[in-house]
């Protein structure tokens, strides 16, 4: 547009000059139209931008790596926290296999003091509906006490029993019952797992 306008201007001025010259009875050689303005020299600036982009890319890669690392860490923490523990029939004491699971939780909970949990006690379907509520509560409580005995602050846990109302496996056999007699650990506050602290 600008160029067109300029061309127009130069064309008009050429005509005017011709007229003036004609008026003088002489026709000097017309001045050549001014050359188009040179394109801006962007080559050095491109190099700077590329450098910046490279750096940004590098930064992004580093951030992505960090993000992946944090995500992996987050997943590790969540999976350790989320690992269920199981109980014997009509019992609420911590079995040796459950103790291993809880030990892993203890170290994670020490590492991330911001994490808060709900400890849910669950039962298999065999006992009476109402008794199972009480049994589930005792299971949640015995897990809470175990974690507290390793110095984890009591204020970081709440407990609740769902009795037999939330089975993990909806079947009526010994394997299903063994799976369903459990404590679960939904996280109520993730603290700063995602912040890498």
């Amino acid at each position, binding site marked *: 547009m600008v160029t067109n306008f300029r061309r127009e201007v130069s064309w008009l001025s050429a005509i005017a000059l011709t007229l003036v010259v004609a008026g003088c009875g002489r026709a000097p050689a017309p001045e050549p139209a001014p050359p188009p303005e040179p394109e801006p020299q962007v080559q050095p600036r491109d190099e700077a931008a590329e450098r910046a982009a490279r750096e940004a890319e590098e930064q992004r890669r580093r951030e992505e790596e960090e993000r992946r690392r944090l995500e992996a860490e987050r997943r590790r923490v969540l999976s350790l926290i989320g690992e269920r523990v199981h109980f014997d029939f*009509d019992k609420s004491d911590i079995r040796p296999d459950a103790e291993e699971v809880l030990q892993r939780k203890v170290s994670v909970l020490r590492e991330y003091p911001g994490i808060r949990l709900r400890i849910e006690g669950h039962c298999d379907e*065999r*006992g*009476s*509906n*109402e*008794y199972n*509520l*009480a*049994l589930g*509560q*005792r299971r*949640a*409580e*015995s897990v*809470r*006490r175990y974690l507290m005995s390793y110095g984890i602050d009591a204020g970081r846990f709440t*407990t*609740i*029993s*769902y009795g037999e*109302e939330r089975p993990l496996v909806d079947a009526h056999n010994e394997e299903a019952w063994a799976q369903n007699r459990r404590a679960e650990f939904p996280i109520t506050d993730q603290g700063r797992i995602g912040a890498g602290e």
Partner: protein
Amino acid sequence: MLRTHRLAARRHGSGRPGAAGGVSTPLRTAALFIGGVLALAPAAATAQEPQRDSIPTDVRVGILYQPVFRPGIVVPVIPAPSELSEVADSARAIILRDLDYGDRLEVMSLGEDIPHEGPVNYGLWDELGAVWLLIGVIEGPADAPVLRLSLHDVVFRLLQDVRAFELPPLRHPAFRMALHRAADQVVRWATSSTGIAATRIAYVDRSPGGLEVFLVDSDGFGLRRLSSDSSIAYSPAWSPSGDRIAYMSYQAGDPAIYELDLNPGTSSLLVDLPGMDMTPTYSPDGTLLGFAATVEGRTEIYTYNLAERCCARRLTYARFANSLSPTFSPDGRRFAFNSDRLGQLHVFVQNTQDGSAELITRYIYDQSVHNAAPDWSPTGDRIAFHGWVDGVPQIFTVAPDGRGLRQLTQEGRNEDPSWAPDGRHIVFASTRGGIAGLWVLDVVSGRIRRLVRSAEARLPDWSGRLDSTSLVGDTAAAGRNRDNP
């Protein structure tokens, strides 16, 4: 009862009245004799309370039902002008079903085409084997019909009693309950014990949003959902006045006890101690709520003063063990409850004011014993519960002193018994016949019927007798009513 007793002797050569069941022993005969003598006294009503199936021996486990004589009753078709014929037919059908479900009378379908205008032909009905004849007459406008019932004693050839029952219009939500009350009155005239038709059963069932409290009439009609918490509702319990139901709900996340007011059908928080509050039960006078609450991770039994809305008082002290599911004796002085304090789950009885807990179910060394869900009979003499037989729950009853253990069921899983106000019928959850639901058992005759068919129906609680004042909520609930034939 005296009369039916004589009749039974006359017709069947056995001295077994309809209301008495259990085991034939010299003691029983003596009790019957004394009962008969007392029945002659003016204060006959007290002596004519139903005889309980107390077994004088220590432990007798097994399915014990005796053939029981039920006096026959005939209810001829109720004649009515055309605008009342539907009312008349419905009324008769409801009363017939109630009389059958009451298990005290045998509904006879004999001689239904016999005209009964004019004087009652006692000789004819006697010949047909009837002991009672119930004649209904329906009158008045269709929007306010009146049913006049007369009960005739066929054997003694006299009019036993007569009364007019005002009925709501046919499709009014209170129509069926008005007839249930009429049927209960007929049972009272015939047996001196009021029937249990005008009652309801609250229970828990699965709904799309979760477990909710449901309600059903004693005859299986009028099924409807009461709560809408969309969480877990458990352990509904009727107030003695019949207008409120306490239950446990997870609606606010933390399990607490709520109360449903049936009129207008709203739910409000009743008790919320720290932790879980569960298994509510009203004291028989309605002043206290018994329940279990969390103490250091286990549960202990408390009472809460309903009149003053305050003052939780702890009743049990069992360290390292759970105590739950309290149920009061009719005089409110004692309560039975469930506890695992002996390492097995058992039923205990304790004084409400003081005293230690006494074990009333059998401790069996080294076995998986699981006796749960006690319910103290409204007549006071038995406590029902479910206990494991080879790992499968079955319904039992036992005297409050631990004597006379009696097993009532053996087919399928049978759980969470609750007594009807007559202390003779029990509603419970069962999988018998491969079809889960709620079932009603007559502990005297062993007759059993299905009340609700639903895979997840459970934790039933039978109301007391519902008088008209406790039923004001019916109209409000009319929109939600749906019949469940």
